[in-house]
């Protein structure tokens, strides 16, 4: 029998449509009730949302103004943040390690935020303020590092627990080819409403492309896990989180300053 492919596909589609009417689906749970209850229990039900883009721009402008004013009169905004709680800073990071891992110059959050044109910082009590903040003028990348925290243990060799890096660049398609070729496991992961990448295993490395098109190889700060995603024009990566859930929790708490 001769068979034309299109006829066969059409017949198959009809069969699939017929099958759809006969599928024995599990009962749909009353999600509207459970979702509303979950939102109420989180205490966020009465929050009024601002339009995202406008809110972001206003927030960024306000942050820059506040940071600028603070710098002008010599007040450390970090002092205000300490009141909100958080664990004490970890041990000092040796200068040799700072150079070896390519962190850049030591700085503070407000200066890094000004240098980068906005900095995303985790708002998570378990993490608190970063113990170390860096800015690398060559690559335009900021980095924040935390030492040992409850549930987020530091690497005993370096004293580094979590390291978050961010820069204005896109990830670029060659990035993950390189990672995959090097045998590292890469999975897509959801961060907020964007797709990111969860990278596990071995000493992975990657490239990123600056706004002017220059491609740089990024220096890895911690061997282990990396969550990488893009938000607000920044490419971010969290290194050292024990699990994807930990990394996503940190990522989704981040607020622009």
């Amino acid at each position, binding site marked *: 029998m001769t068979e034309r492919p299109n006829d*066969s*596909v059409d017949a*198959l*589609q009809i*069969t*699939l*449509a*017929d*099958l*759809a009417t*006969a*599928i*024995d*689906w*599990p009962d*749909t*749970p*009353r*999600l*509207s*009730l*459970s*979702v*509303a209850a*979950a*939102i*109420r229990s*989180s205490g*966020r*039900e*009465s*929050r*009024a*949302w*601002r*339009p*995202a883009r406008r*809110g972001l721009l206003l927030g960024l402008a306000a942050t820059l103004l506040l940071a600028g004013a603070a710098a002008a009169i010599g007040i450390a905004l970090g002092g205000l943040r300490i009141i909100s709680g958080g664990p004490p800073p970890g041990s000092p990071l040796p200068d040799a390690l700072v150079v070896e891992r390519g962190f850049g110059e030591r700085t503070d959050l407000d200066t890094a935020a000004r240098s980068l044109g906005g900095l995303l910082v985790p708002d998570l009590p378990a993490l608190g303020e970063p113990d170390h903040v860096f800015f690398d003028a060559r690559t335009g990348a900021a980095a924040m590092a935390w030492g040992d925290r409850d549930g987020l243990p530091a690497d005993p060799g370096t004293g580094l627990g979590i390291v978050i890096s961010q820069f204005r660049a896109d990830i670029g398609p060659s990035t993950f080819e390189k990672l995959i070729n090097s045998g590292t496991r890469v*999975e*897509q*992961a*959801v961060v*907020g*409403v964007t*797709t990111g990448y969860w990278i596990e295993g071995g000493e992975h490395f990657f490239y990123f492309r600056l706004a002017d098109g220059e491609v740089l190889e990024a220096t890895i700060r911690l061997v282990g896990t990396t969550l990488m995603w893009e938000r607000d024009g920044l490419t971010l990566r969290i290194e050292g989180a024990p699990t*994807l*859930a930990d990394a996503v929790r940190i990522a*989704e708490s981040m607020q622009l300053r």
Partner: protein
Amino acid sequence: MEGRPLTDRELIERARAGELAAYEELVRRYEQQAFRAAYLVCRDADEASDAAQEGFVRAWQALPRFRAGAEPRPWLMRIVVNAARNRRRGSGRRAGLALRVAQDRPSDGAAPSPEVAILAGERRAELLAAIETLPDDDRLVLGLRWFVELGEAEMAEILSVPRGTVKSRLSRALERLRVAMKERAADD
């Protein structure tokens, strides 16, 4: 109060203004499709339920980033499907047969003869079994298209790929399904 049901866009605008009841109504409209889409990914009813709930809560939290004027349904479904995919990866296991054909399903029309009903049931079960042999991605696109009854444009948004990619994935999945069915027929 308007004398007509609110549109999805009206509901999501109210939700963006903080009105939880509006969001609850939006979830009610799409909870079945969302749950079924999550079920196609998770292949377990409890996991799918948790994933769908997680997705809808995430979407509530992400309302500030919803693009004004966009269609809410594919946006919501995308977040739910992504939550389901994360759960599936996290579980690290491949669940067993997810979909089944209902037996002795009552018909609105004239009941078929027992012989016809058995033949139809066998044909459907055979098709489902062939679908189960396909890779996850193939099963998902076929399931979203024919079992959750989503259009290609919505699927493109849900899967975060261009519409042309949805077309080509569907085409490839159908082709592999045809091959799988022929192989099963040859084995019998």
